[in-house]
């Protein structure tokens, strides 16, 4: 599936705005992203497995914070920084 990458994380993806990743849940997709782009996941998810306060994940246009949210059957999810962190 496609993952849209926000500007603060594109230093990890070589500038790519959209990358491919695999996984059945948001968490699995983030782990796959971290395999491809080492260090990316810890900037988004803390050491207790929680989505960081000022980061957002959109699944089917809904903002989700539960990383176990399933993404099967979806073509794309979006990582985004929140306005609150600006």
């Amino acid at each position: 599936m496609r993952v849209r990458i926000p500007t603060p994380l594109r230093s990890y993806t070589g500038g790519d705005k959209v990358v491919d990743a695999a996984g059945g849940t948001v968490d699995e997709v983030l782990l796959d992203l971290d395999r491809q782009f080492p260090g990316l996941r810890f900037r988004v998810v803390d050491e207790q497995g929680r989505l960081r306060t000022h980061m957002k994940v959109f699944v089917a246009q809904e903002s989700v914070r539960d990383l176990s949210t399933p993404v099967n059957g979806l073509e794309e999810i979006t990582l985004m920084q929140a306005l609150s962190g600006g």
Partner: protein
Amino acid sequence: MLLVGTRKGLWTLTPDAARHAWHVEGPQFLGHIVSHAVADPRDPDVILLGVSTGHLGPTVMRSTDRARTFVEASKPPAFTAGDPLERSLRTVFWLTPGHPDEPGCWYAGGSPQGLFRTEDAGDTWSPVNGWNDHENWALWAEWPAENTPDGSMLHSVIVDPRDANHLYLGLSGGGVFESTDGGNDWHPLNDGCEAEFLPTDDPSFGHDPHTVRMHPAMPDRLYQQNHCGIYRLDRPSTKWQRIGDNMPRDVGDIGFPIELHPRDPDTAWVFPMDGTDVWPRTSPDGRPAVYVTRDAGSTWARLDEGLPGRGWLTVKRQAMTVDDADPLGVFFGTTGGEVWGSPDEGASWTNLAAHLPEIYSVEWAPA
């Protein structure tokens, strides 16, 4: 050169041979919060940065070519996954190079008030479990309360040059603590320090040290700029003396940084800020000055030649430093984005840079 960490990136200031003209370069990591930028005295090519952004988690950036290029730590500082207190690190706030006998070792202090260690010059980091998991940690660190505007910070990690296992650290919400066994066990060291904001008289912890320094040539002597004054401790005593009582009453002894002369244990500089009323933290009476003691705190002298006659300056705890010249250069950076320097131990000051973002740290990187 000076390493200037700001809320929006890293700048460097490099002097000419006479240290009169300064070349300002930057930013690197534009937009990143650079809490601390520190050079390794054991290897002048190595520089570490504690960084984060408004959105992203904290990390460490490492240079092995004197700040020309940086790479990210492959395993940044972090609390332990599954931590019973569910802590997650927000900021790598403070960096201290380790003992000369342990090249590659550094300590990092964080917010929340955790302690972390690397043994490979900053590439991979581990929690110091003896501190983070100490049975008294939550009590000493007043967890989960966070007592400073950006969260409580662990700072002023000090390694005794005589003994790599002898460590001190400061908690902005908690006080000064000491370990004599490499960080496995710790005890408070706050006797004699005021804590006017606490309800109990003479508590053993809970204090708010702003910066703690050990004299490199006289490691039994420590100085402290605390929320409640300036102190000195000469070991083996365990009771701090409030040397700030000797500051002029109309200036007071509140501030964030304190810097020591590397060769003279009796000389220290502070940047007093107004701690009265609602705690403005700006130059008392709007008249900026540095103060120096040359007799271990018995007397203090005002140093303001060249500083603005009227100004409301704030200098954060890591934003003051000295170089290694003779006479010594002294420098500070303000939250208003100005860097000021003195080539003559504070007798006179000039502005070295302006219009930078809010300055968090100013540190000297030796050649």
